């Protein structure tokens, strides 16, 4: 700091931050420094439009616009062809049909159960396994690959395999010498579905948690070990609190997944029996009563209702669970 007084006359407060702002005035820069000329705003905006425009357009067309299209068709009895006009305008009938349908509310209830059970079953298990796998051990990357395998396989393919294994006369019953209606018994089917979901998505949760754990500096747990903390004390008091942001992000992804569950239910239980087996979901109900029975107006109304329900759940989660520390994790780059 002693040089500042002598240098002050030559270059007051020279900051090595060569941003655009330092261009004007009499700031003396080091000889090799380059100052970017103030670029033409029109040119810059044009670049922004050319670069970001196509993605924004596509996104608006295929992600946002469908909600508006669905809103429009939800007021019509429309089967996929012909015009929409006063003749097939049905007002709120599609909504009334859906909202007074006990099967729909059954499906909503199932989504709720799946959502809660997914969090309760997969969350602690994934954290526990991730904490264990975060220890020093051989072959860790091989283990990571193998537990990720179910996640990589298509839901449709998993569904077919599980369907064949879990039939009344299938491999699992024969192997265990049981006669359990894994898929057909309404008391069992939901737990079968939960097992399949846990099997399918646990690997993803573990990898996410492991990724979060690897972001925690090793020095923390080493310091605690030096101070005499036991393994579980370290996990509980240091790792778990620091893993919180990752857990919250995972929770959000899990909830969104539970709200739109379709493939597995549809492939395993098909278009008709999911309701009697007690595993129908909102998306399944929408497909079965919309596209697959040719009732696109009705399907659109169901889509709008599902959209509102999903949005409410997502917003509640954002408001109450995803507080500031996760906002940082998701939108960190916003600030700089």
């Amino acid at each position, binding site marked *: 700091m002693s040089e500042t007084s002598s240098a002050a006359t030559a270059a007051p407060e020279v900051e090595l931050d060569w941003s655009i702002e330092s261009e004007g005035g009499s700031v003396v820069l080091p000889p090799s420094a380059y100052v970017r000329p103030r670029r033409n705003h029109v040119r810059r905006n044009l670049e922004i439009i050319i670069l970001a425009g196509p993605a924004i357009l596509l996104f608006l067309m295929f992600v946002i616009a469908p909600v508006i299209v669905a809103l429009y068709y939800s007021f019509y009895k429309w089967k996929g062809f012909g015009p929409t006009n006063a003749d097939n305008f049905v007002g709120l009938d599609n909504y009334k049909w859906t909202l007074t349908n006990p099967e729909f509310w059954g499906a909503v209830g199932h989504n709720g159960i799946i959502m809660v059970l997914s969090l309760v079953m997969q969350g602690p298990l994934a954290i526990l396994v991730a904490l264990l796998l975060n*220890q020093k*051990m051989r072959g860790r990357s091989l283990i990571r690959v*193998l537990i990720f395998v179910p996640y990589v396989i298509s839901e449709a393919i998993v569904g077919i395999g599980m369907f064949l294994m879990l039939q009344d006369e299938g491999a699992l019953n024969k192997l265990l010498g049981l006669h359990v209606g894994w898929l057909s018994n309404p008391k069992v089917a939901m737990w079968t579905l939960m097992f399949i979901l846990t099997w399918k998505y646990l690997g993803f949760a573990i990898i996410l948690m492991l990724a979060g754990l690897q972001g925690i500096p090793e020095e923390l747990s080493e310091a605690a070990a030096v101070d005499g903390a036991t393994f579980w004390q370290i996990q509980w008091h240091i790792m778990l609190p620091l893993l919180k942001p990752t857990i919250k992000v995972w929770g959000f992804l899990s909830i969104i997944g539970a709200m739109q569950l379709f493939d597995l239910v549809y492939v395993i239980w098909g278009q008709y029996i999911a309701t009697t087996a007690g595993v129908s979901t909102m998306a399944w109900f929408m497909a079965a009563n919309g596209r697959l029975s040719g009732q696109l107006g009705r399907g659109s109304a169901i889509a709008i209702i599902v959209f509102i329900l999903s949005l409410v759940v997502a917003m509640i989660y954002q408001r109450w669970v995803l507080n500031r520390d996760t906002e940082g994790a998701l939108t960190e780059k916003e600030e700089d």
Partner: protein
Amino acid sequence: MSKVKVVNKQTGAVLKATPKDGGWGHPAIYFIALCIIAVCLAPVLYIIVNGFRDNSQMTLNPSGWPNPWVPGNYGAVVTGRIGMFWRQAWNSTYIALITVVLVIVLGVMTSFVLARYKFKMRGAIYLLFASGLMFPLSVAITPLYIMMIKTHLAGSALSVILPQVAFGLPQTIIILTPFLAAIPMEIEEAAFVDGCSRLGFFFRMVVPLSMPGVITVAILNFVGSWNSYMLPLYMLTDESQYTLPLGVQMFSSAHSQETAQILAFTSLAMIPALIFFSLFEKKIVGGLTGAVKG
């Protein structure tokens, strides 16, 4: 390798600084890991192994081992006597490839703008894409189908590709933006000193430097497209246009008695994704780490 000695200044305790991957660790960890792996792989092995049995073996003992091993089911699928494996594998491949290319090109361009330009709408655009995570495909799919009918695209590969790209963008942009923002300002300045334009900088510096992130999102989008089921189910109507998951599922409901053939077809359909994943596992995990940390 580790010669570093960490000593607690107060207690004088020496910390054995073993690198994380170095030691053998506790046996219990291996036992737990082994159990989890067994549960993870059992259904997959069931599908693959049972494809080597024939239907009479399956009926007699659904949980048995192949005796004798019958390669005929796999043969029939590979030679095209049953199903349309190659045709549908090709459909899956080119739909996934086009999807990935479009998502990456559009995603990198947009992330570049979000990461390296300062302008008023920046926050709004980022928020727009971030909110895309809350718009589930299952909600948009009915109106998407209507839109595709209206534009006569329903039944074509484009009707699957375009929505897939649009729904792939949020995740892609959220993962890539931090990658591009992390490229040091000095590199950009140096490029300008050397007379690079902003776009020149984009092509010569940003694209190569963002490769690790790009590979991650490319794999995620490829696997997502390869496995996608609901979108093809809604959009595609002709067996020769089906992607593999849809083709396998349709085959299994049309030939529900041919269990062994279904299993052979099913295992062949899942192998490409498994190979692809095992080749790039490190990149996926690395990318997820980046995404979680922001």
